[in-house]
Each structure stands twice: as C-alpha cells, then as structure tokens.
C-alpha cells in the first residue's frame, strides 16, 4: 500500500512529479487566496487567543512577562490546530481527494505540497505576527528573535503532525475535536521545547540545544509525517 508513496526512480516521472507538486501547491494557495478568511483567520485567532490572557488572567505586566512565552506558543499551537480542518476535509467531501489518490504521482509529494501550502497560509503569518504579540505580552526584547525562530522551526511540525490527525479522521462525521485529542499530545514536545527556549532566552541562557532539538524534530517530521499522512488518507478514503 504505502510503497507508492516513496519517491520514484525514473527521471521522466520525476519531472512530472514536480509539475504535479507545483500544481497542487498552487491550487491550495489559490483556494486560500479566494477565501480571504483563510488568510486572515489564523492570524485573528492567534491575536484574540493571546489577548484573552490579559483579560482572563491578569493585566499586571510582571505577571504577563512571566507567562508571555508560554501563552504565545500555546496560542500559536491552537491557531495551527484550528486551521487544520481545511487541510483535507473539503477535498474529501467534493471528491478531489480521490483524484489525488488516483494520481500516478507519489502521494508523498502531493501531501507535502498540501502541507507546505497549509503552513504558508496558517503558520507563516503567525510567525510574522508573533513579535507584536510578544510586545503586547511584555516579553523581554532579548527573546523576540528566539520566539520568531523557534516558531519558524516549530509551526511546520505542527502542520505536519496535524496532517496525520486530519488524514486519519477525514472520513468521520464529527470534526475538529477528535483531531485535537490525537494531535495535541503529538505536538506537545514541540511546545515544551519552544516555550522553554523563549523562556531561556529572556534569562540569557544558551539556546543551541533547543534549536538543535527543534531542527531534528522538523527534519524527522518532514521526511516521515507525509508518509504517515499518505497512508492515513488511503485508509480513510476506503
């Protein structure tokens, strides 16, 4: 089953694999562009969730400084999670997913293309907005870059892992939540490392270890997660 998900050998097919990869990437970005909400919403959600904390917890700057790294990371995670539902669901419902599965191209690359476009739409904007929120949460200025870099390394992992969960549940009636139950535990390590790195940065501690870990997790999930998603999609469409 899963062996066609592996990269192909002959070069003729490879050229066309790239074309298919690009077409899929472009299509998904186009869909997002057309529903501008998709572009705006992860951002807005991120903003709103972060701002729930000053409202719900405390507006004391010292307090906020202490919880800043954690809340920004938690909110980024939740924002990624919420936008995951768009990843395969619509394609499943209108039958495009079957077309994708019946493409002679290796599914690995197709899933990767969808993952990348999902990250560009939901992850990247969050990363770019994070310094503003960090400022609003009184994060020490030293930690800004660390926040951005860890999010840059971490949010793709959230998309990649999330895709497995979506792929497993795409055929089911109930949405969203079963996903959260599966995906949140999987993404916990990234959250821990990321938030820890930011916290350490505010204290001026060395960060090499954190980056190395995040990088390793990213590399691993880039190569393995789309395979798992591809296998999961084949199961779900059954």
């Amino acid at each position, binding site marked *: 089953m899963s062996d*066609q998900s592996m990269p192909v050998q002959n070069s003729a*097919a490879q050229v066309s694999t790239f074309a298919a990869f*690009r077409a899929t990437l472009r*299509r998904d970005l186009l869909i997002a562009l057309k529903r501008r909400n998709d572009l705006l919403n992860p951002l807005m959600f991120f903003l709103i969730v972060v701002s729930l904390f000053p409202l719900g917890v405390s507006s004391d700057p010292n307090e906020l400084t202490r919880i800043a790294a954690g809340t920004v990371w938690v909110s980024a995670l939740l924002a990624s999670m919420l936008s995951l539902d768009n990843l395969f669901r619509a394609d499943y419902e*209108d*039958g495009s997913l079957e077309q994708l599965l*019946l*493409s002679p191209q290796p599914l690995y690359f197709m899933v990767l293309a969808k993952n990348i476009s999902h990250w560009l739409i939901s992850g990247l904007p969050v990363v770019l907005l994070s310094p503003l929120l960090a400022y609003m949460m009184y994060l020490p200025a030293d930690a800004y870059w660390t926040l951005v870099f860890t999010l840059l390394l971490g949010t793709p992992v959230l998309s990649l892992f999330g895709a497995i969960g979506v792929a497993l549940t795409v055929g089911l009636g109930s949405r969203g939540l079963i996903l959260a139950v599966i995906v949140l535990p999987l993404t916990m390590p990234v959250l821990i490392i990321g938030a820890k790195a930011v916290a350490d940065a505010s204290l001026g501690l060395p960060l090499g270890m954190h980056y190395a870990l995040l990088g390793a997790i990213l590399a691993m999930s880039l190569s393995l997660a789309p395979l798992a998603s591809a296998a999961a999609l084949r199961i779900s469409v059954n």
Partner: protein
Amino acid sequence: MSLSAAATSPDAQSAAVQPLLRAAALFCERDERVLFSGLDFSLFAGEVMQVQGSNGSGKTTLLRILCGLNSGYEGEIFWLGEDIDDNREGFLASLLYIGHRVGVNKILTARENLRWSSALHTPVTDADIDNALVRVGLAGYADVTCRNMSAGQQQRVSLARLLLSPAKLWVLDEPFTTLDVHGVKVLETLLAEHAGQGGAVLVTTHHKLDVPCELRRLNLDKQG
C-alpha cells in the same frame, strides 16, 4: 463465473487478444451481505461496458475496488496481464475515474479545477481546457466559480476531464446524473469516440445507454 456468460462477449475478440482489464474471482461482502462472489470479467480495448444492477447491488463498490480505492475484497485484478498491485503507477497512469463525488472544488473556477486535475496526470494548455469546456457545453463558463453553477453544470465540468486525459480506461460512476438531454447525448458520443480510439469504458447508469458502438453489460443483480 455465471457472469462471463451473461456479458455478451463479442466474437471479434479472439482469445489471443489481451484484455485491458481483467478481474478474476472477485468477492466482496459489506455488512454481512455478499455483494458479488466469483465475479470474472474482461474488458477489451474498444469496448464500453455498462455495469447494471438495482440500487445497492454493488456497482459503486465494484468500480472503487477496480480503481484500488476500496480494499475490502478478495480476488485478483489485472491490468494488461499484470496484477494491479504490482505496477500500480502504470495502472493509475492509464486510469480516469469519476465517482459519485465528482472532484470539483466549488471555490475554484472551472478552468482552475481542470488545470489541477490534469496536472496530476498530464500537462494541458489553457486552449485545451477551453476546447474541452466548449465540447461539454460550458462555453463562456471557464472563469465562473463552480459554486455559482447549477448541479448539471458542475457535472459537466468534471466531464471535461474526459477530453483532457490520455487515459485508456475510463471508470465512470453514474456520470449522467443531472445532465440534461443534450448533455446525455454529448457524453454518449464521447464514450463511443473513446472506445473507437482503442480505449475502454466502464460505466454505471440506470438510464438506457444509447452509444453508437459496442456495448456490453455486466449485471450485478444475478450475483449474490
């Protein structure tokens, strides 16, 4: 086995000609109901085969099994004599499937939909797409969002894929739904043309197919 007899096998094909698609001893049960068992049939180039059967007889299930979308079956399927699991990529490159859910994204326009679904198989130009849309009666609708089309128009968008694909084997699950009389004609002509060019078609429909070419029937009701 009763099946190969039921399908009116055309005498033109001698045993020496290799079938494009061959199914051997297919067995499938769902919810403890056997849909078909010991189902054998061959599909040769130049043939249109209509899969018939009452509602719930297993037509959709059969087509999905043949395409590899459904794995809950026993038996073997061969494409050009090779087991489809052995050379899946080769098989998929020659296959075009349109199911109950036609694979048309409602947010994209007709053109954008076709551009993507073609790119999964072969690259096509915009002119090709325009021509295809004209053929299926959607002239002027290339850049209309599919959400704003009627049910039949959306169906036509998916049928335009038939014109853009080099696939030898078409597997169509009730492609005539929501098409108007003229649309039905166009599609029937397309099927005949494809068969005439050495392709093969496996199609389910409840209406009386009137194709100007060889038509075989596979009736699932006799099974089970």
